[in-house]
């Protein structure tokens, strides 16, 4: 049973008006794994997340979740299956309170979510506690500052009770102390049984958050392997910094 990977992508391709956002991307994410996804700006990382979460349809290729094809499922059904994501440009529900924001996830998440409002609120409260947002529970979401917005984004995704969590650059704009904080939280999430795909630019975080790393460049898979191997790989360094002059 645990031989079937949680997520399998085969030759996923998405083009925007001739531009290859992602081109024949294939990889596997195993249960309980933390898979890092890195690549320079414009590599196609967020597009890949959009395709996995269902926000964007792929032009070609196949996507499997727990062995079953999900290519034609709309985003909400993928959420029901257990795929949750955060948005790089955060999307809170502005005029709902922080608690209500998270409760929405509990109400409509895994397997259709809870049908009892009270239960959903309880679960939301627990998540606010977990992400350190309890003191803001009754504030309107659009009044939150940057780091708190990230916490909210995370809490909302967790409320879906995801089996697979797609984290899209959650570390952006955080200082080192905050980064370590979030790394700790993400590890706790993994320990609780959620598999995670982490997209990151912040190298400090990627090292500690990845069992394996895949690298995208110009929409194509550049490399795949252990963190140390990848981060020392010439091609990867070149992709970020440009060709080394001899």
């Amino acid at each position, binding site marked *: 049973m645990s031989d079937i990977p949680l997520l399998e992508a085969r030759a996923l391709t998405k083009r925007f008006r001739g531009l290859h956002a992602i081109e024949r991307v294939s990889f596997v994410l195993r249960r309980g794994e933390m898979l890092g996804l890195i690549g320079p700006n414009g590599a196609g990382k967020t597009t890949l997340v959009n395709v996995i979460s269902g926000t964007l349809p792929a032009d070609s290729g196949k996507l499997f979740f727990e062995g079953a094809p999900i290519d034609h499922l709309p985003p909400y059904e993928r959420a029901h299956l257990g795929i949750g994501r955060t948005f790089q440009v955060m999307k809170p529900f502005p005029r709902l309170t922080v608690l209500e924001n998270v409760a929405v996830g509990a*109400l409509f998440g895994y397997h259709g979510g809870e049908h009892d409002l009270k239960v959903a609120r309880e679960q939301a409260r627990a998540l606010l506690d977990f992400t350190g947002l309890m003191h803001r529970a009754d504030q309107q979401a659009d009044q939150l500052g940057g780091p708190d917005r990230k916490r909210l984004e995370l809490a909302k995704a967790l409320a879906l009770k995801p089996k697979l969590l797609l984290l899209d650059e959650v570390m952006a704009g955080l200082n080192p102390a905050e980064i370590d904080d979030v790394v700790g939280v993400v590890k706790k999430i993994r320990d609780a049984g959620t598999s995670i795909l982490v997209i990151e630019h912040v190298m400090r975080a990627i090292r500690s958050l990845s069992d394996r790393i895949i690298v995208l460049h110009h929409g194509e898979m550049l490399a795949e392997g252990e963190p140390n191997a990848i981060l020392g790989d010439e091609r990867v360094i070149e992709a970020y910094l440009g060709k080394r002059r001899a």
Partner: protein
Amino acid sequence: MLRAAILALCVLALAGVPLLGDEVLIQYGIDALLFATLAQAWNILGGFTGYVSFGNSSFYGLGVYGTAIAMAQLHWPFGVGLAVGAALAVGCAVLFGIPILRLRGHYFAIATLGLSATLAAIIANIDIAGKNIGLILPLTRADAAFYEEALLLLIAATATVAWIAKSRFGAALLAIREDEDAALVMGINTTRYKIAALTLSAFFTAIAGGIHAYWITFVDPGGAFDLTLNVRMVIMAMFGGPGTVFGPLLGAFILSAVYDVLASSISTAAALLFGLVIVLAVIFMPRGLWDLAGGFRRSGARYLLQNIRAHRL
């Protein structure tokens, strides 16, 4: 507890109005109550789900004509007539809702307006609908009965909105309003909920139309599919407070009164004033009266300026 008591008192007071015997008051009452229902019905789709419809007059008109045709041409009783009108409106909501609800913002608003204009023109040319001449319904003198029926309808609509505000269904609508893309990835089947909201909206709007048709006993395409109705119900809901339970009621009662009072005096100055009121209201109380009341309590007159500061360029 106190709230429930106040509410009950208000309902009793409203229900008791016909006992006063003032013809004009009862007629104003029926108008106001029906408009309040229209505003409340609009509120479900516009206030809670964030889909601003400028085409609810379609459903109103279908309610009017469904009832009129059933009663005038087929000689069915009032209740059945209402059911026919409601069925037509709900059918229209589901049929056109699916494609039109894929649009957002201005485009949705305009598409609904287009729909209602098209429907109006079509109905004006159907035989059983009496074409442009209209239909006449059986006469009945029970103004008070219409009043109570309108009140009952309003209570039903408001109770529905109150339920929405506190239910899982409502949570989905609010999520769609606040951020539809985020709602999608959070597991909400937005299409299903939008259509449900539209259907509820259509239902109450149509019944209001049916009651109005029987009350004035004459229907014609211009009056039934009156496009200005759309703006009026939107303004009433917005003026009172979209997305709240009692806001639209407040807006409808107050603006109906303003309309009537002004219309009985110099009609041009009246309309002018009305337009001015709208402009000022949007500037100073863009969230409606309900929000104004709360805001005033919190920060006094500064509330008015806060809005400008928050929304200016």
